[in-house]
């Protein structure tokens, strides 16, 4: 293996402005990508994987730090890379052939040579016979093949992939993934160096020589693993399974410091911070929370995370928030990639609905800062009602628009389940259950559903 560094990321931070605040998405990231290696960037959704990838592609600029390609700092799109998108990003008005040719056209290559190279790429990637089809005539798997052909035809030094298989169904993605593995091991792949962003642990282990695990809030590199299993890798081999467990352990492991939204600046943030709001609620529904505790109880109190994910057919993106939530409420504990039920959790699993709700309410007020904050504000108000907008604007400064709304939605779900408060969508108010309008809001909610 040739050890020249193609891409160097040096102490990169990325800060996005939010409503009246800032959110640090990447914090002090340094990494290198060397010629001939395949690197996987693994992390949960929202940890900043795509942001980091776009910094590397030169599509967005880091707030501080530099990204360089072959030693030259980037100030525009990275000329040595091509990107495969999760959404395929094909031009719908061009045929498969025209889509693949476009990158060559941009390089000013003559029509005859262009056509020849495009046809070859189409052939290699298994799209023969579809040259004159339009993307909308193709299945998702075929579209992503076009995405790969388009990226590979320009023979980039580094192939960048942003969750390239996550929009495909399980079988299709498995098929395409193993074909890629085969092409890499057979040497038919024109590009030997790649960076793949994924939230699928097995995918990372299957493809990569090196795995970087990204922590969230803010995104930092939490661990780096080298995978030395020979390719193609058998996902049922004990070594493979050990690695999966290890990564689960890293992803759910105790942090040195509690996970926090990075707070910069003063003003409203400081007030919000005092409430503990910078510790986000894991976005898990109360239903899934109950489900996982009951599943653990049924399995005798302990089970590996990989097995749970398998049984539930959950991606880690679906599973980890639930695990986080259950952990936050002290219903479960994680230990080396396995999940263990606590005493608390056993009682919860055994309780009838009314009891379970009571227990949930106590735990949520104790452990979930946002729920506690809302309950406190409601009790403090004379009318037993507060405007959701106020809570939302505090959250916005910490999390940005989308995530703030998500935080509030989760809190409302938890509050409703624990019968701590109600939310009236028409008037945009949070209400104590004793408020006269609360029953109406609850009734409206059932009609909507």
């Amino acid at each position, binding site marked *: 293996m040739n050890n020249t560094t193609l891409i160097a990321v040096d102490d990169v931070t990325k800060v996005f402005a939010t409503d009246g605040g800032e959110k640090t998405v990447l914090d002090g990231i340094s990494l290198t990508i060397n010629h001939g290696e395949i690197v996987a960037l693994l992390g949960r959704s929202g940890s900043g994987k795509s942001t980091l990838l*776009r910094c590397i*592609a*030169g*599509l*967005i*600029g880091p707030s501080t730090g530099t990204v360089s390609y072959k030693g030259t700092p*980037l*100030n*525009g*799109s*990275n*000329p040595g*890379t*091509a*990107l495969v*998108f999760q*959404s395929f*990003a094909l*031009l*719908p*008005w*061009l045929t498969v052939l025209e889509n693949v040719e*476009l*990158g060559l*056209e*941009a*390089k*000013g290559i003559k*029509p005859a040579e262009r056509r020849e190279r495009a046809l070859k790429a189409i052939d290699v990637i298994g799209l023969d016979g579809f040259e004159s089809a339009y993307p*909308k005539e193709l299945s998702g798997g075929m579209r992503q093949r076009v995405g790969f052909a388009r990226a590979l035809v*320009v023979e980039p030094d580094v192939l960048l992939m942003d969750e390239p298989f996550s929009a495909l169904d399980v079988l299709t993605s498995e098929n395409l993934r193993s074909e890629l593995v085969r092409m890499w091991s057979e040497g038919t792949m024109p590009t030997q160096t790649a960076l793949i962003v994924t939230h699928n642990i097995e995918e990372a282990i299957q493809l990569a020589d090196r795995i970087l695990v990204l922590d969230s809030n803010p995104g930092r590199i939490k661990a780096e693993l080298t995978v030395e299993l020979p390719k193609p890798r058998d996902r049922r081999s004990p070594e493979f399974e050990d690695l999966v467990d290890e990564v689960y352990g890293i992803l759910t492991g105790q942090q040195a410091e509690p996970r926090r939204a990075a707070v910069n600046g003063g003003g409203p943030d400081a007030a919000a911070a005092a409430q503990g709001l910078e510790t986000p609620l894991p976005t898990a529904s109360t239903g899934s929370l109950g489900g996982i505790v009951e599943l653990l109880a049924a399995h005798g109190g302990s089970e590996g995370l990989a097995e749970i994910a398998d049984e539930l057919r959950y991606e880690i993106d679906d599973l980890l928030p639930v695990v986080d939530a259950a952990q936050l409420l002290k219903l479960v504990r994680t230990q080396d990639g396995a999940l263990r039920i606590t005493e608390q959790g056993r009682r919860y699993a055994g309780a009838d609905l009314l009891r379970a709700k009571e227990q949930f309410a106590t735990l949520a007020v104790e452990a979930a800062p946002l729920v506690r904050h809302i309950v406190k504000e409601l009790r403090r108000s004379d009318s037993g009602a507060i405007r959701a907008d106020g809570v939302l604007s505090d959250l916005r400064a910490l999390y940005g628009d989308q995530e703030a709304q998500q935080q509030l939605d989760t809190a409302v779900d938890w509050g409703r389940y624990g019968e701590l408060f109600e939310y009236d969508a028409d008037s945009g108010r949070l209400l104590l259950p004793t408020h006269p309008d609360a029953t109406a809001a609850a009734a409206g909610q059932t009609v909507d559903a």
Partner: protein
Amino acid sequence: MPVLRPLSGAGALRRPALRWTDLLVGVAIIVVFYLTIRATLGAASPLDLATAPSSISTDPAHLPYYALRSLLRMFVALIASTVFTFMVATAAARLPRVEKIVLPALDILQSVPILGFLSVTVTGFIALFPGSTLGLEAASVFAIFTSQAWNMAFSFHASLVSQSRDLDEAARLMRLSKWQRFWKLDVPSGMIPLVWNGMMSFGGGWFFLAASEAISVGDKTYALPGVGAYVAAAVEQGQLDRVGWAILAMIVMVLGTNFLFWRPLVAWAERFRQEDTAAVDRPRSLVLDLLAHSSIPRGLGRAFAPVGRGLDRATRPFGVAEHPLFVPRLRRRAGDVVMALVVIAGILYGAYWASEFIGSTIGFGSFGEAFGLGLITFIRVLVIIILATLIWVPVGVWVGMNPKVSKLAQPVVQLLASFPANFLFPFVIAFFVAVGIPLDIGGILLMALGSQWYILFNVIAGASAIPTDLRQAMESFRLTPWQRWRKLILPGIFPAYVTGGITAAGGAWNASIVSEIVSYNHNTLIAPGLGSYIAQATSGGDMARVLVGVIVMSVFVVGLNRLFWRRLYRVAETRFSL
């Protein structure tokens, strides 16, 4: 017949050498070419301003030629609007500093009464093309242009800034040249809204065509050969039957351009739709199907391919469609400051020039007079909007909620909306004169004639967009009619109604310039108002009053948009979106 054995060249036999579609398309192309050249020759003919005709012959035999000349003006204006749109909207979308100026400017231009400017621009264009009809032609084309370009530019700018982020990133990472990106990504992704907007604006353009073919500058009137000037001449001489012929010609032109140009274009633009799901009833066009079956368009495409490649190469030096990630702060600041200074200086100079001009001629007191007249016209506009709302909202809802009816009604309404109302004026005015209705009241009807359709049109669109399952759910609840309106229909149509209302009100203000003063059979009727103020100032060559009138009308329109319609629109978006 003996059994045919497969021959080596059988493929060539099966493909007829010349198909009838090819023949048809070929002949059509030649005819269009010929007509275009003929009309162009007429438009570029020499002209002596001193002896230029102030009226044209009303012999119906001339109508086909007049129609041709009018059509040429419409299409030249459309091309000009498209080029303007491409350049200005793209610059605004790519250069933040340009955007800060262009968007407000377009917003104001959209609300300015175009007809008030006609006389100002004519003088300029005549000076530009001395001794040729081209000056007058250009002025007329410019009037049509101003009724189309701002809308189209807004629409294209909106689609540029809402471009899919992934497609944008794919294009940047491929390092497409600026030219390639424009044609491969920007234009295709904005094509559908642009075509629809172009079609609507084109429909609105007929009104300005009719109003701009007979132009008064100072005390002199020039008439260009065209359908609009024909009507003007026929009305002046009280020949209602000849106006009837012109209306017929107009209907043929509106329907013809729709069938031969817009329908095929709309159907063709469907290929640029980005959603996966094919629309259930995709627009179809007979003409497009015909073209698709002919090999001539493809042949032409191949013949011109080298030109495309040449342009691609020639535009390479303009660089890659990419912007630097980091711009030194000092340089950016400096750029902002220079830009701001230039703009402020320009505005100050314009304001100084205008106040100097008005102050030294008619004095600032005239603003008061114009403002008072503006209030009168405002009342007329208000009456129109209220009446049109009361009448057309229920009708529009009924049509929109009955798919069968709306299928039949849609093309009719479209024709009504694009049919230039000023062609119908003569009949209405003749009626006023006969019955003795004063123009103070009658003018309201004239103004409404062109503008009310926007409300109907948009309400139909809004009502037919109410999801069927929602409608069925509401029906199962057995609501009273009033509850149905309040809970389902009003929220459903409100945003569309507001859009229609803005357009209708803008159209009514503009129409006041041709509606508050009319002449018929050597009689002139006048209703006091800002419209007649501007019209009289124009025909008297009183530039200062024209300027004052246009400024006051712009203030009215922009002010009402800001204070009333925009707020209503925000309410529509937040409270009532389905």
